[in-house]
């Protein structure tokens, strides 16, 4: 099977600018077109392990990043995201083109794929059991996720946890991990040889860089996992790593608040989430030092903290 990394930089650039790439991420195929160099660069850096469909006939999503046809060729140039020819989002500065692709693909999935209960949460797996990390932005979810998946845990997803209503399994969607502001330097120091997309400053989330997903996680994208823990991380400067149990009802409400389509799924959404909460131990997790956090996760056992 052809992978994106098999293309030379030249082939990648020319195919992106021409007919586009049919990129497989988990169960979704995205056709992506762009002649913007930073998009080709970002894809080449972070998506080398992902399969490309040859002679593809079908894509779930059709994304194109292009510079708008206005007077801003040189003065504060911009980028527009087109979804099948329509631009529903505000143009961004040209330098934000690669993160815009990431955000646009997240939006495509989270606004459509309603055969799953979709949570705004990171999810990692070890020995067949998954830990879900729902959290509002700024709680250190992605930082913790990045540390875990380079220390024995498999990345299922950093942004979108897809829970299958039929059996409660989580479907992997391994994609680059979005890190912000201070976390970027922290992870550069913490990990050996991390691969990052170039940091982009002044986005609506501050400075953003994407960290390459571990190759093993990408290759195992078809292996689902049953969740065993729901961990609400909370970074607090100087705090010791402490797990505190969260009651089922409270966990249900907190996870529902972080779901994209809980109310759209109606009764099915409630049942799926109730099953998930029943199946998992839920904890609040306060931490400051990543090594302590990793040690705490190491001690997690299904059915007990």
């Amino acid at each position: 099977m052809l992978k994106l990394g098999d293309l030379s930089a030249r082939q990648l650039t020319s195919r992106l600018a021409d007919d586009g790439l049919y990129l497989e991420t988990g169960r979704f195929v995205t056709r992506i077109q762009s002649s913007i160099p930073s998009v080709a660069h970002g894809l080449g850096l972070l998506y080398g392990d992902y399969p490309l469909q040859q002679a593809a006939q079908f894509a779930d999503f059709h994304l194109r990043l292009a510079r708008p046809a206005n007077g801003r060729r040189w003065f504060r140039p911009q980028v527009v995201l087109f979804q099948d020819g329509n631009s529903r989002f505000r143009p961004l500065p040209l330098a934000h083109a690669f993160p815009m692709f990431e955000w646009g693909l997240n939006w495509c999935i989270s606004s459509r794929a309603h055969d799953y209960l979709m949570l705004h949460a990171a999810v990692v797996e070890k020995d067949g059991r998954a830990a879900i990390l729902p959290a509002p932005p700024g709680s250190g979810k992605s930082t913790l996720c990045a540390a875990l998946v380079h220390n024995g845990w498999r990345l299922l997803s950093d942004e979108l946890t897809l829970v299958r209503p039929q059996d409660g399994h989580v479907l992997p969607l391994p994609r680059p991990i979005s890190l912000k502001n201070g976390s970027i330097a922290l992870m550069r120091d913490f990990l050996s040889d991390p691969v990052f997309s170039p940091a982009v400053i002044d986005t609506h989330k501050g400075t953003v860089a994407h960290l390459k997903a571990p190759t093993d996680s990408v290759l195992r994208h078809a292996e689902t996992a049953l969740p065993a823990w729901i961990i609400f991380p909370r970074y607090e400067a100087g705090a010791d790593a402490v797990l505190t149990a969260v009651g089922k009802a409270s966990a249900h409400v907190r996870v529902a608040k972080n779901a994209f389509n809980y109310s759209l799924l109606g009764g099915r959404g409630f049942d799926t989430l109730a099953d998930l909460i029943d199946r998992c131990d839920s904890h609040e997790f306060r931490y400051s030092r990543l090594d302590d956090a990793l040690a705490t996760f190491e001690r997690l056992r299904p059915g007990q903290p």
Partner: protein
Amino acid sequence: MTTTTAPPLLLAVLRQPRRMAACTLADWDLLLRQAISAQLLATLRDLADAAGVLGQLPSQPRAHLDWAHLQSERHRQAVRWEVRQIRAALAGLDLPLILLKGAAYAIADLPPARGRLFSDIDVMVPKPRLPEVEAALMLHGWAGIGHDTYDQRYYRNWMHELPPLQHIRRLTVIDVHHAILPETAAARPDPLRLRRAAVAIPGQAGLQMLAPVDLVLHSATHLFYDGELAHGLRDLVDIHRLLSHYGDAAGFWSQLTARAAELELERPLYYALRYAARLLHTTVPADTSAVLADTGPPAPLLRLMDALFLRALLPDHASCADRWSGGARYLLYLRANWLRMPLPLLARHLFHKAFISPRHAPAEQV
């Protein structure tokens, strides 16, 4: 566009839903995108289901159809809930509450409701009762949204509805109509006749909808007189499905043409049947076409209308457009405004909208 080119895939499938079973993955890639742009994705699934081919579709496009289906089911549930809230808000007024368009289809469970998404709930009440209705809705949490003084006057003096009201907590929007065309339009079908003929919605105490022939005429008027072409094909599919649903009832077609004459709505009906037959192969009895033959425009104008509508009613998608499509939609927008109000008023309205009204809100953040 000439009649010899193949029709867009979406039209071919709307005419013969069984053809979905023979679509390749490449066909589906295009068909889904055309259907999304026409807001007909969930409708496609319903048609595939009704034609018995849903189980034969490849898994990738099937997933997209199922996603849209879930959304439309949730939407119908929300519409039922919202209509209950409106009925409760107006319960004390002893008022016949007539649901229009999408809300009527959804509550009466008519075929166009299946797979249809719409944003506003439309209701019709007698004009003298508007102040009470508006007050009751405001007491129950609906409030006017973002309309300046000019918009207020535009709606209240000239239009056939109140300025849209939005619920402050649920953010749902209700349009309260007292007629189906503006006060300023050349044709003004008598609302009293429409209300008198309205029928109870089975199993829904206190709720009514327009009589079947009036449902068709209202839908035709909305599309071919009122100029709501943003979802032109979807609205034409509504008409197609209403006609297929009611068309077999004895006397339906003769009632339809007689009622169109009575309400001065023969021209919109003429266009509706013409373009439904052309684009969707809707079955229209020969004697109905014969009765309406004289109600169309003169031949040169008809050729122009064909050129415009046969473009503007296609899905608003790059694969269905030629270089005249944008112009056709724009000319029909002007035509609709022209029909809504006399020229001096129209000139004033367009001037105000172009130079004085505040700009629309910017697009979303990705």
